């Protein structure tokens, strides 16, 4: 099962599910990471964490830990 934290730079993928056992899952959903949406890993900080994803017309930075609850298809 691949999650958003395992994407390579420039790689796109479609979200299949959000892990609702994760403490931040609701905010992740609310900010627009919903199943069916396409995301692209655009950037990361020099420390490889947080990661910046292109999503729904904008860029969202989230920690790797949070990207782990975004399950890709």
């Amino acid at each position, binding site marked *: 099962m691949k999650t958003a934290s395992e994407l390579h730079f420039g790689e796109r993928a479609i979200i299949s599910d959000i892990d609702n056992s994760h403490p931040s899952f609701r905010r992740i959903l609310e900010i*627009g990471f919903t199943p069916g949406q396409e995301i692209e890993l655009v950037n990361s900080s020099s420390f490889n964490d947080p990661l910046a994803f292109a999503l729904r017309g904008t860029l969202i930075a989230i920690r790797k830990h949070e990207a782990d609850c975004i399950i890709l298809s």
Partner: protein
Amino acid sequence: MNKASLEKLYLITLVGPPNSGKTTLFNQLSGKNFKTVNYPGSTVEYSTCKIQSKFGIQADILDSPGIISLNPNSPDEEISINSLYNHPEMGSPNLLIATIDVSQISRHLLLSKQLLASGFDVIVVLTMNDILAKRGYEVDENRLAEELGCGVIKVDGRTGKGIEKLISCVKPKLKPDSLENKNYPYKAFENISKEKLLTLYSDIERIERNVIVPISNGSQTNIKKANDKLQILNPSLKYGSNRPDERTLKIDRWLLSRRWGLLFFFIIMAFTFTSIFWLANPFMELVDEFFGYLSTSASELLGNTWYSDLIADGIISGTGSVLVFLPQILILFLILGLLEDTGYLARGAMLIDKPLSKIGLNGKSFVPMLSGFACAIPAMLAARTISNKRERLLTIFIIPLMSCSARLPVYALLIAFLTPADKAWLGGIALAVIYISSIIGSLVVAAIINKFNKKIINAVDSSSFILELPAYRVPKIKNVIRNSIESAKQYIYKAGPIILVLSIAIWFLTYFPNHSPEINTNGLTQEETVQMVKAERLSTSYAADLGKFIQPVMSPLGMDWRIGVSLIAAFAAREVFVSSLAMIFKVTDENNLQSSILFAMKDAVNEETGKPLFTVPTIIGLIVFFIFAMQCLSTVAVSKKETGGWRIPMLQIIIFTTIAYVFSFITVSFLNLVGF
């Protein structure tokens, strides 16, 4: 604000996600009476003012903090959401204006849908239409109005086009009779389930597909081409409005580059950091000189009486000590405001989040910590941007350890004592060592405090970092200036009175009971007499009693009550240490204060031991003390205000002063032992 003036006015609250153009709209509507109100007992703040009179509406508008959904994610968000239902000072809004950035309409519709479903009376304003138009699309506002069942108006943030239409939509909503059978909104979205959220989003996506249409009168072929291109790149897209801003992606290739990103970050922050010194310095000197002049004129005018001294040395100098930091606060907020408005600040927070998260801080802690090198007061105000309460309190907690500019005069004096005049570069190195120690010290303290989080910070919040990186844009200078001035006003109104009262208290302690001491004036000039009186008064004052009382504490450091008094006086503000030493060692040459203090310091003898008072160990011990000690009363006052109670400022005083004392003791003992 009193109730009577409120009853006549309607209240319109602006609500929207962060970066949705809410504040721009607020500025276009706003007229007189601009002010910020606090939600009682918290640091959540709102800008409010009357609607511009030319629009002919008697209403207050309230700019609420940006929220993503009606389901709160932090204590501050919960307050923001609750205040939509009922703001304790402003009442419940008669109408909400919800802003939506159309270039990311699917994300921003979430909040509007929730507001409508909760029963609020809402008008939706669409912003950033030009960005969508560049991609060849527009929103069909009539169709969106049908879908949502509320008024939808496009407003251009730059030109203000659409404002008139918005006003004509607002007017009929604000009739007195329309308020009587009003539906009261209810809280429908707390702990919303995943299924409900997904249903909401799929409805939003359906609406999005319906309302976003290609611009019909543009060059059709180009759009078709662009569309085809996007379809090839990304077959899942039904239309081409889903890519982030291309220019932003290009700039980010540099500013967020994995190799150069940190370098750019440090260059930008170094510029910010140094400019709060060199840009602010001339203004600070001006303020200082002005109050010095006022104080001298006042004491000349009022003669040699206690009330003249109260006014000149207590009230005027106290006011001066409040206002002297104003230039730094203004410049700091200006630069940070510009960085935030361009969109860079969010990226800076992202770049530095990882190392800071290791010690319980957040990427957003960086800017407040940096500001702390200018002055802890604006730094603590800047910590408001940290949404996580625990991380915000921890950031505020360690800010006093940053080497603020008020410590500089103290370090300058102490370093000058240590280094020979012909080797000035040694002083530079010493200062660098002091700054680096203060950074390391604060990080270590943060890590330790974080370990004892439950006992000290007493706020549990699961740490997260979810931050939108807004598209780069040219900053709106007018908004930035307005917000900087507002922050500066806040500092004066809220921290000012406390600082003033405490300054007067310190003045009282150093002035009474022996306010007009008798001294032998034979053979002294008038100026010398005045200085002698001052010195005699201080050495017989309550502060001196206090100094003698803490003598047992000072002795282990190899210091006597005179340094103790200066340290007590430095609690008003650190730089007072220098002038207080001057007073206590009867230094009279005001033209060359530093070299005459140095001269007096070299001659000073410890009254207990008979040995020289200022030695290399005691001087280094004093420097160590100043690195850690929580001495600034203004900081205590702001810390109390920003953390909402006395708990954290008290802990700061106790913990930092203890660390300062213990480390200073260890330093002095060690240096004495190795034979300095």
